[in-house]
C-alpha cells in the first residue's frame, strides 16, 4: 500500500487549495445569500477556475484536455468543496460529462463538441434525466410497470429527431451550452430498452430553459427546467445506439460504478465540506472562551470534535480508495457505498459543527450554510433509492 501522492497530483492539489482559499471562499457566503436563484451564479469564478484547468481537467490528453486521473480529481474536488460545495459542483459537473463523452461519443462527436468545450471558458455541460413525474423510476425502473420513467418523447423525421416534453431539476440548465438528454424513443418498451441519449446544444431551436429552482442549499448551483417544443436534433447527435441510452453503465468501456464518476464526485465533495466543518469547529473550540476558559477544555466539546474528525477521516480513506480503484478500472459497488456513506457523514459532521457554534452562542451563517448544503445529499436522487441501487449491484 502506498498513500504517497505523485508530484503531479500534489501540484493539482496545491493549485486547487490556493484557488479555493483565495478566490472561491471569499465569495461563498455572499453568493449563497442572494435571494434570486438565477442571480447566485457568477461567471467570473467559473472563468478564473477554467483558466486553471478546473473545468476541463477530466478530458483525456489525446483530446486536448488535462487527462487527470481519478485520484487527482478526488483531491481537487475536496479542496474546492472545502471553500464552497456548490461552486465546486458546477466545475465537477463538467468532469462527469467529460467522462461520458470520452466513454460513449464517436470520434466525430468528440471533434464537434470537445473542441468548443475546451476552448471556451464559459462552456458548461449538463445532463437531463429527471422529469416531473419520473425521478426514482429512472433509477430503479419497476419491473411491474414498464411504462414508468421519463416521458420526454423523441420521434425520427428523416435525418432529425423531434423532441417534445419537459425535464426538471437539471443541473447547469440555465448556464450550460451542451446537454445530454435522455428521451423515450420507443414508448412501448420499458425504460432501459426504449430510451435514447441525445446531445442537445443550448441553442437548439424549440428548446428553452424554464424556471431555475430555488433550493435551500447548493444555492450557487443552477438546477432548472428544460422545455422541448418540437426541438429539432440531428441524428448525428444520437449518443450510442438508438434505444440504448443505458450504455453508459451497460456497455461503456470504462465502467466506474454508478454514474461514471458521479458517486466519487459527490463523496469527494462531501469530504471537502467536512474538512471545512472540522476546521471551523476546532478553531471555535480553541479560540472561544466561556467562563474564562476555552471551549476545548470541555469533555462534551472534545467528544463532539472527535466524532467529526473520525467520520471525516474514515470518509477520506474510503474516497481515496474508490478513486484508486477507478484508476485501475476495478468495477465494484464501492463508489456507490462511499456516496451513501458520504450522505450520512456530511450531515452529521455539519450538524455537530452548527451545534458547537450555537451552543457557544456564536451565530455563524457559514455553519448554517454547510448544514443546508449537506441536506442536498439526501435529495439528489431519492436517498433510499440510491442505497437500494447500490445494494442490488452488490447482489449481481
Amino acid at each position, binding site marked *: 500500500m502506498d498513500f504517497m501522492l505523485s508530484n503531479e497530483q500534489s501540484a493539482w492539489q496545491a493549485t486547487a487549495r490556493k484557488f479555493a482559499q483565495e478566490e472561491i471562499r471569499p465569495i461563498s457566503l455572499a453568493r449563497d*445569500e442572494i*435571494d434570486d436563484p438565477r442571480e447566485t451564479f457568477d461567471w467570473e469564478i467559473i472563468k478564473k477556475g477554467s483558466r486553471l484547468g478546473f473545468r476541463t481537467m477530466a478530458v483525456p490528453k489525446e483530446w486536448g484536455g488535462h487527462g487527470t486521473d481519478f485520484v487527482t480529481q478526488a483531491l481537487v474536488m475536496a479542496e474546492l468543496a472545502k471553500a464552497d460545495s456548490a461552486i465546486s459542483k458546477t466545475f465537477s459537473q463538467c468532469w462527469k460529462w467529460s467522462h461520458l463523452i470520452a466513454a460513449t461519443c464517436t470520434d466525430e462527436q468528440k471533434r464537434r463538441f470537445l473542441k468548443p468545450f475546451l476552448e471556451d471558458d464559459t462552456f458548461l455541460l449538463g445532463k437531463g434525466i*429527471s422529469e416531473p413525474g*419520473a*425521478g*426514482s*423510476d429512472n433509477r*430503479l425502473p*419497476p419491473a*411491474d*410497470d414498464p411504462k*414508468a420513467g421519463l416521458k420526454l418523447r423523441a420521434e425520427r423525421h428523416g435525418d432529425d429527431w423531434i423532441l417534445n416534453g419537459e425535464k*426538471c*431539476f437539471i443541473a447547469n440548465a440555465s448556464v450550460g451550452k451542451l446537454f445530454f438528454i435522455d428521451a423515450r424513443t420507443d414508448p412501448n418498451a420499458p425504460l432501459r430498452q426504449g430510451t435514447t441519449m441525445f446531445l442537445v446544444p443550448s441553442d437548439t431551436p424549440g428548446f428553452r430553459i424554464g424556471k431555475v*429552482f*430555488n*433550493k*435551500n*442549499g447548493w444555492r450557487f448551483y443552477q*438546477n432548472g427546467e428544460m422545455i422541448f417544443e418540437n426541438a429539432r436534433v440531428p441524428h448525428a447527435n444520437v449518443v450510442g445506439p438508438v434505444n440504448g441510452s443505458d450504455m453508459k453503465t451497460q456497455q461503456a468501456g470504462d465502467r466506474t460504478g454508478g454514474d461514471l464518476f458521479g458517486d466519487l464526485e459527490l463523496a469527494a465533495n462531501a469530504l471537502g465540506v467536512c474538512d471545512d466543518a472540522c476546521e471551523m469547529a476546532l478553531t471555535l473550540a480553541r479560540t472561544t472562551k*466561556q*467562563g*474564562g*476558559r476555552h*471551549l476545548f*477544555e*470541555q469533555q*462534551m466539546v472534545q467528544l*463532539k470534535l472527535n466524532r467529526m474528525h473520525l467520520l471525516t477521516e474514515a470518509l477520506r480513506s474510503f474516497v481515496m480508495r474508490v478513486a484508486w480503484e477507478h484508476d485501475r478500472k476495478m468495477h465494484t459497488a464501492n463508489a456507490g457505498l462511499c456516496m451513501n456513506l458520504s450522505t450520512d457523514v456530511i*450531515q452529521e459532521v455539519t450538524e455537530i459543527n*452548527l*451545534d458547537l457554534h*450555537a*451552543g457557544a*452562542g456564536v*451565530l455563524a*451563517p457559514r455553519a*448554517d450554510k454547510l*448544514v443546508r448544503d449537506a*441536506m*442536498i445529499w*439526501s*435529495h*439528489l*436522487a*431519492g*436517498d*433510499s*433509492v440510491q442505497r*437500494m441501487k447500490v445494494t442490488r449491484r452488490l447482489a449481481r
Partner: protein
Amino acid sequence: MYDLRLSPEQLEIRDTVRDFVAQEVKPPALDPTRLEAQTRPLLTGALDKAAQLGLRTLALSEEAGGAGADTLICCIVTEELAVGDPDIAAVLAQTSTLAPALFDRLMTPQQRERFLPAFLADDRYHLALAQHEPGRDATLGINYHRAETGDRSCKTTALRADDGWVINGRKERVANAPIARLFVVEVSTGTGGAGMLLVPSDTPGLRVTESGHGVRWQHGAYGDVELADCRVPLDNLLGAESQALLAEAGHRITQDAALNLGIGRAAYEAALDYAQLRVQGGRRIIEHQAIGAKLAEIAIRLEVARAATWQAAWVCDNPDAVAGRSLPDLPLASIAQVFASEAIYRAAKDAAECFGAMGVMRDMPLQQYVHDALVCLHSGAGTGEAKLRIAEALAGYRRPATAAALAAE
C-alpha cells in the same frame, strides 16, 4: 390510577384551534411567495384573530378575565398553532405564560388595577420578559458540577430618583420585544439587590431594535431592548417573590416542546399526504417499504415526544404527583424538550426526504420545517447544555453560591 382521556372541553379547544389554524393560519403561512422569502414577517392578521379567540389570555385566571387553562391545555393549543406557524405559537405562548404569573400572582392589587384593564381590552397587548444581557454568560458548560465562575450579575441598573426608578442598560434577544406593550425588566437596584420592574413600551428612553442576526434562530418575534434613562414610577417594582417568575420558565419549556411537536406534525402530515399521492416504482410510495418504514419512524418519534411533553405538562399542573411518589423528581420538562427536539429534527428530515428534490425547494414548506426543527434543537444553549443540567439534577447537585453573591448578602 392512570388516565389520559381529554375532557370534552379540552377536546373542543383542540378542535377549535385546529380548525382555526387550517382556515386562518395555514393559507397565509404556506403562500409560496412567503416561503421563498429570506425574511418571514409575523402574520399579524392571523395573530390578532388568534387573540380574539382568547388564545392570548388562555392561561390567565377566569377571575382576572382569562380562560384559566392549565399547562396541558396550553401545550395542546401551542402544538396546534405551531402546525400552522411556529412564530404565532411562540408569541402567544410567551404572552399567555407571562400573563398569569404577572396578573394572578406577582402584581399588587394597585398594579393590577393599572395594567390589567388595558391588557384585557387590547388584542394586540403582548407581554415580554427582558432578562438576557450581552456578555452575561448564562450557560452551564465548563461550570458543570462546579461552583460558577465569572460575573453573572445583572448590568442593567435601576436607581431611585425622587418619585421613581431610572433604568439604564441593554437586553438582548427578548421574546415578543417588537410587539410587547409591557416589559418586565430584570434590573439591579444598587447594592447588589436584583428586582423586576414593569416598563410600558411607550416609556421614553425605551427602544426596541432588531436582533442583529441574518438567519432566524428563534421562533416568535425577538428584539433587543435599549433602556436609556427610562423613568418609571416607584410602584412599578414587582414584589420580592418576582424571581418566581423565572420559575415560570419551567412552564415555558413544556410550551417549547409542544411548539416543536407542532412543527413535527406539520412535516409528518405533509409527508403522509404526499406518500399516498406520489406514484413511483409502479405504486404509491407509501406502499414501498423504504418510505413506509420512514413514515412509521416519524410517527413513533412524534408519539413518544408527545407522551413525554404531556407528562411534563401534567406534572406542572399536579406537582403533588412528585411528592406522592407517582412521578420521579426530575426535570421532566427538560427531558421532554431534549427528546422532542432531537427526535423531531430527525423526523422533519425524514419527512422532507419523502419529497425527493422538492424537499429542499424554498417554495415548498418541507425545507422550512427542517429549519424550524433545527431552531428548536438549538434553542437556549442547545441540548448539550440541557443534558448537563439534567445530569446535575440526577446527582442532586446543589450549586454553591458564588463569591459575588455571598459578598452581596
